[in-house]
């Protein structure tokens, strides 16, 4: 087709092309991954060493972003903190997908009473706000990163089960599934061969968008003191540490805040881009 599309000039160039959205997201993502992986080997200072004579120092050649209230290098803490924040996030999202996807596939395909019971249980869990649940679990088991992860996974898998289940429910009555049944395929084979490929792209989009949310949850719970425990560097915990000094030394909160902001932005860009790319209806 040779239809000349009118040029729209009011949209900035980097939003005009949907693929650019993904490209930017992926570039950010690669930079973040690189920093996370090699960061701990290149940091100028030990992130845990306190040096009370140098507390709240301004940026210098030794301390690129200055020091915090304990005289620790903020730059080093940010870089090493990326590992705990992002590592935990990746682990949480992966665990959630591994639990949520198979359950969604099976209850969506089998349906009936199993489906009803499962979804009522899920509704029950969802009725508890994530934060309250995290606080409760921290109260029972003590505040730590592991318990924080448990509480997030406990609530999050339901979102994956829901998405997968709803796709499977719309797909399972289509003629190609009936044809596979008539052709002698077992339920297991139909789930594996016909249902699974349908859910891959929506789940990837969901996971990418979720990474941003999980980072925020971990950081905010750490900020409340329910996640990473001092002196471990974690962005949310760093925000919390900087709180008493916000008026005199705002950089203590600004740097970890910016780090969270950029990482969440990167994953959201990537998620939105992938969604636009794979959503057949919007093409």
């Amino acid at each position: 087709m040779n239809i000349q599309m009118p040029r729209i000039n009011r949209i900035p160039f980097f939003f005009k092309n949907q693929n650019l959205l993904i490209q930017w997201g992926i570039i950010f993502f690669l930079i973040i991954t690189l920093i996370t992986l090699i960061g701990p080997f290149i940091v100028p200072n030990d992130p845990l060493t306190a040096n009370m004579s140098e507390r709240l120092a301004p940026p210098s050649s030794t301390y690129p972003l200055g020091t915090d209230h304990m005289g620790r290098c903020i730059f080093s803490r940010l870089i090493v903190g990326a590992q705990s924040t992002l590592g935990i996030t990746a682990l949480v999202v992966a665990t959630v997908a591994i639990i949520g996807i198979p359950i969604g596939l099976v209850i969506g395909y089998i349906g009936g009473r199993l489906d009803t019971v499962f979804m009522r249980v899920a509704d029950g869990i969802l009725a508890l706000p994530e934060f309250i649940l995290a606080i409760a679990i921290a109260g029972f088991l003590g505040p730590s990163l592991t318990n924080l992860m448990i509480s997030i996974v406990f609530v999050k898998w339901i979102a994956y089960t829901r998405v997968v289940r709803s796709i499977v429910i719309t797909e399972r009555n289509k003629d190609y599934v009936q044809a596979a049944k008539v052709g002698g395929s077992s339920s297991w084979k139909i789930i594996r061969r016909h249902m699974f490929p349908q859910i891959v792209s929506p789940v990837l989009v969901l996971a990418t968008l979720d990474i941003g949310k999980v980072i925020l949850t971990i950081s905010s719970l750490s900020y409340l003191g329910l996640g990473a425990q001092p002196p471990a560097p974690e962005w949310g915990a760093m925000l919390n540490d900087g709180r008493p000094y916000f008026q005199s030394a705002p950089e203590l909160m600004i740097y970890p805040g910016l780090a969270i902001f950029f990482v969440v932005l990167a994953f959201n860009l990537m998620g939105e881009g992938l969604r636009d790319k794979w959503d057949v209806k919007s093409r």
Partner: protein
Amino acid sequence: MLHVNSISKTYHSKAALSDISLTVQPGESIGVIGESGSGKSTLGKIILGLEKPEQGDVHFRGSNLHTLKGQALKASRRHLQIVFQDPAGSLNPKLLVWKSVVEPLENFPDVIPSFLKEVRHDRKKMAEVLFQKVGLSSELLERYPHQLSGGQKQRIAVARGISLEPDLLVCDEPTSSLDVSVQAQVLNLLKKLQRDLNLSLLFISHDIAAVQFMCERIVVLKEGLAVDSFLTEDLFSESRHPYTRLLVEMSMEQEYK
């Protein structure tokens, strides 16, 4: 070979089928005509064992289809295949078409259809032979359904339907979503395959001309009731049920428009 004994089925307390009986002999082709909502697709699904009738039973090759379970059900399905109305919906959009075609053959490793004897060990070669059988070029093997035309997709669905060399092929409106020119090609293909493989056909359609071309006997459904049943050559006879005559007149009018 297939005996349907007075089956009934209701949906939402409305009768979809009431007291339907029919018999299909080996190699015979039976047409089921009716307007949409007459229950003809439900009949097809019940015969395939995809749905259960509330009353009556379906005997296929000597066993009651709806009491079979597990391996026994699977074993009788090998002789009973389907071609659906909408070829776009009957092929998995995310699967290469040749994989859809050989899926039944994967499930029945012991079944060796006469036309696949030499290539039974090789999935891709089997797909190639089946494509030839339905008049498709082997270039199309590595395509996804959305890269093919409706007629091509329907030929692929037919190839899957005959892949196990079944005794009975249920065709649920196999041509009604196709262009008129392509309809004739697919009908010719089905007729040729039926003769070559000695298939029995249960041909469900609202298109009287197609049924007349394909079938030896015709059953007319109206609101879930079998109102008329006759040999195709008696289609224009005076003794036809008024509803059958109405359907014939309507299809004639359409032709001369």
